[in-house]
């Protein structure tokens, strides 16, 4: 019988497993220690906080701070400026804040990939093959936000079917 990994005394009947940044964390706890750690025993609730609380709250805070500090290399708009005004600083911001924009665009619009007019001499839309390659690279680099964005792009481009393929020059 597995013992609680925190008190080392009681029987562990809470099994906690979470994949975080590609690392699998596993903990066996007794109910008392689980509750002390703030874990509600309702399935699926509070797990993330619990694990983060036990492991590296500091690292996590730092990571979050780094994210807040992202700024656009072209116009120096900070992520916080964008969050405040909901307006971007320059065309380059679409790359700088791509991770924030992806879910917003999906919510606002009927699709996530442009279909329609393009300016004179505009580059052709990256073909789906190139998107797939980029997706594989993002997954390998564990850049899951980017991977999710690319996955959505591929999904939209393939679901759009004939229309999506036909229009761009």
């Amino acid at each position, binding site marked *: 019988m597995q013992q609680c990994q925190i008190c080392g005394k009681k029987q562990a009947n809470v099994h906690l497993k979470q994949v975080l940044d590609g690392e699998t964390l596993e903990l066996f706890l007794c109910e008392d220690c689980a509750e002390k750690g703030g874990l509600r025993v309702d399935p699926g609730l509070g797990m993330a906080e619990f694990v983060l609380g036990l492991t590296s709250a500091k690292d996590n805070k730092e990571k979050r701070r780094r994210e807040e500090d992202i700024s656009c290399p072209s116009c120096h708009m900070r992520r916080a400026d964008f969050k405040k005004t909901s307006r971007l600083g320059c*065309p380059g911001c679409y790359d700088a804040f791509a991770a924030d924009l992806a879910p917003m*665009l999906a919510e606002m619009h009927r699709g*996530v990939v442009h279909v329609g007019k393009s300016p004179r001499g505009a580059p052709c839309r990256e073909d789906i093959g190139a998107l797939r390659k980029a997706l594989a690279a993002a997954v390998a680099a564990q850049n899951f936000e980017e991977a999710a964005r690319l996955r959505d792009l591929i999904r939209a481009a393939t679901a759009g079917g004939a229309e999506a393929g036909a229009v761009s020059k």
Partner: protein
Amino acid sequence: MIVNDLVKHQNPWLSLGRETGIVVSSRVRLARNLKDRAFPGWAGEKECDRLCKEVADACGKVGRLSGAVVLDMAGLDELERELLKERRLISSEFADRRGGSALILSADERIAIMVNEEDHLRLQAIAPGLCLEETWREIDAVDSEIDRHLNYAYSPTLGYLTACPTNVGTGLRASVMVHLAGLRLTGDFDRVMKGLTRLNLAVRGLFGEGSEAFGGMVQVSNQSTLGESEQAILARLLGIVQDLIVHERNARARLMEKSRIVALDQVSRALAILKHAMLISSMEAVELLSILRLGADLKLVDGISEAGINELLLVTQPGHLQMRLGRKLDSKERDRMRAEFVAGRLRHVEIAEQRG
């Protein structure tokens, strides 16, 4: 052409076009930005000035814009701004802009380009009646010509890049102004409005963002700009507007069949107030003229056309009223002048049909 002269002109979107009984006007606007340049809200004043000149130069080379005027926003007074707003040539946001922004206006007022509003360029074509396809073709052609002289910000996956992510992609916002006075009288107006918002369409009043649907005057426009071609966006909006027209036509027919006396009563009351009141606010003017407009469509009124009423709807707005008199008026004075002006215009207008 200076702004003052506009008052003397009939506004093109108020003359008569197709489906004018119900559709007042159609408008298509495109949001465009220049590559590698900060958007107007983030750019410095000098940068905005420089960009303004570049865009004006580029527009000077566009055939369709020969004879257009370039109005520097810094040089316009409050009344002139108000007038342009009421003519739907600039947005409320743009009316508050000072230096570093300009309006480029074609001689016939159908094409208006705001430089440095939220985006570097906001190009619009506006015309009377239901003509989305036509206005789209018109602004598309101007856009393509400008594109030859400027480098637009564009991404193959996200389309035309705009300051607000709500406009990215095609950058296209198409809107149709409909007059749903019949649905208001039959009490179905709110239900129809709710249906429209469920269809993910933006619904606004006569004077754009934030304005209310006075007199059943409603602007319906697309919200999504990404993931669908311009043609698809226009076709969907057109389909919905055509449904609205059918609903409104049915409401008007029902009124005439089942409650003719109620319709006649409403129109008679509106006309009586418009002809005899001493003070009329601009809001009341829109409400009453809207009912009169319905009366004209239902042939209940003699002596004025719908186009004539459309014009009254515009020239009774505060900016137009004051510009016509050549000075600023306080709101009491305006209400007085408005009442006088309307009474004069409607002197020979009568109810076409005797009660009974």
